[in-house]
């Protein structure tokens, strides 16, 4: 029983890595800080390139799958493009 509880409570954290493409209108907004304050997610930046025109950030998110999904939905609602670290997994 204890093992089952441990499985449901603790084993659901995972790490996933994404590229975020941030549009011009949001480049000054502290998006990563907001993620950490709105959701129980640990963020870790791999690379970042932010110009006045756009921001491109590679971001690792660690947390429960459900919370990572919520972050993705929130980011997409802001019109930030969220791609897997492979960028394109679907080819011609």
């Amino acid at each position, binding site marked *: 029983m204890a093992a089952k509880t441990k499985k449901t409570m603790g084993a659901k954290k995972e790490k996933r890595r994404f590229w975020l493409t941030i549009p011009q209108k949001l480049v000054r907004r502290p998006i990563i800080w907001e993620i950490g304050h709105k959701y129980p997610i640990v963020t870790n930046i791999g690379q970042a390139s932010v110009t006045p025109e756009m921001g491109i950030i590679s971001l690792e998110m660690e947390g429960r799958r459900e919370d990572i999904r919520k972050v993705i939905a929130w980011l997409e609602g802001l019109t930030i493009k969220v791609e897997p670290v*492979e960028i394109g997994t*679907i080819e011609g």
Partner: protein
Amino acid sequence: MGFIMDKKNRFFSGLVCRECGRKYPPAAIHVCEYDFGPLEVAYDYGRIAKAVSREKLAARPESMWRFRELLPVAGDPTVGAQVGYTPLVKCNRLARALGLKTLYVKNDTVNYPTLSFKDRVVSVALSRAREMGFHVVACASTGNLANSVAANAAAAGLKSYVLIPADLEAGKVLGSLIFGTNVVAITGAYDQVNRLCSEIANKYGWGFVNVNLRPYYAEGSKSMGFEIVEQLGWEYPDNVVVPVASGSLLTKIHKSFQELVKVGLMKEPRAPAKIHGAQATGCSPISTAFKEGKDFYRPVQHPKTIAKSLAIGTPADGYYAIQVVNQTKGECEDASDEEIIEGIRLLASTEGIFSETAGGVTVACAKKLVQSGKIGKHESVVLCITGHGLKTQEAVAGKCGQPRIIGPKLGEFEKIYEEDFGKS
């Protein structure tokens, strides 16, 4: 095959991050742990130089594997032994139509076994997958890649899964199903499907050809460049026009030309071959960025083109493709759907080569580059034609005229004859 080589004697040492140069073992990994940069295969060019010569290569079977020291397989290739070495066709009639003196088509419409250049990358990926002990291989694709993984896995006795968007045309689905693969159609927007494929690829420990096997898979594209140079009599062309989807093929053709120098098969050219990128106007992130003088592209959210095999709005190697075009003093061009169809018809009617839509893009863009003077009329040009037209018949259906129907009477045929040749 005659290329006996054991794992201790392989010509590549491992993987290296393209961004920061960190080294990794030759495993099924594809992204740097530190900066998420793409991993590439690291070769021992000194050893390869001692092992290869033009004479040795010439004695080998005519397949892409005659350049096997420069492909990332530890032992003998076990999948796709007959892939590659497609014809380099001298195209005098098309050259005249485009206003060129010397034009060749690298004709991968007849690549074995699934009539597209994807057989090159898949044969490398699956040979490497077997070496690493994978029993299940997979990919996410909208067409050619799916067909190639399904066919090559079937021939190799590997279990395969092909993930496709749920709205894919029935003909393309059949082109994979026939090989007995497991086709899984995924509903949802492109970005959702893309992220799910990444999750699946990283969860089940499969050999996912364009995800965790990508460093090996991508290297297969180099064989097209090696073959072009050998088939030109060990000469570089002045120009190569390459269709661009993810940008991988373009960067790997450039890499192949550089590697031939590194291993002593070619001398450093006075001027490098100009490598030009060809895209469809309805999905042209790289062409647009290049024309705007930028080194990064804006993702295309909703591609709209008949060239579906090139309709990748966020090309994974886009940044590197733009770099290569700039380094080689090449250009990027794009073509509308009408121009793509005209390109397909022009190639077919002048050279008897029926290309899929990507080939129409390549021909149409080459035509524009010649007309604008960006490709000189006296320079040699190679067009990379990457897939057969039978795969995208719907693009030209109803646009090539109609048969003239007659009754079974000689008199009716004579009317047609008179229309075409006048009265005899």
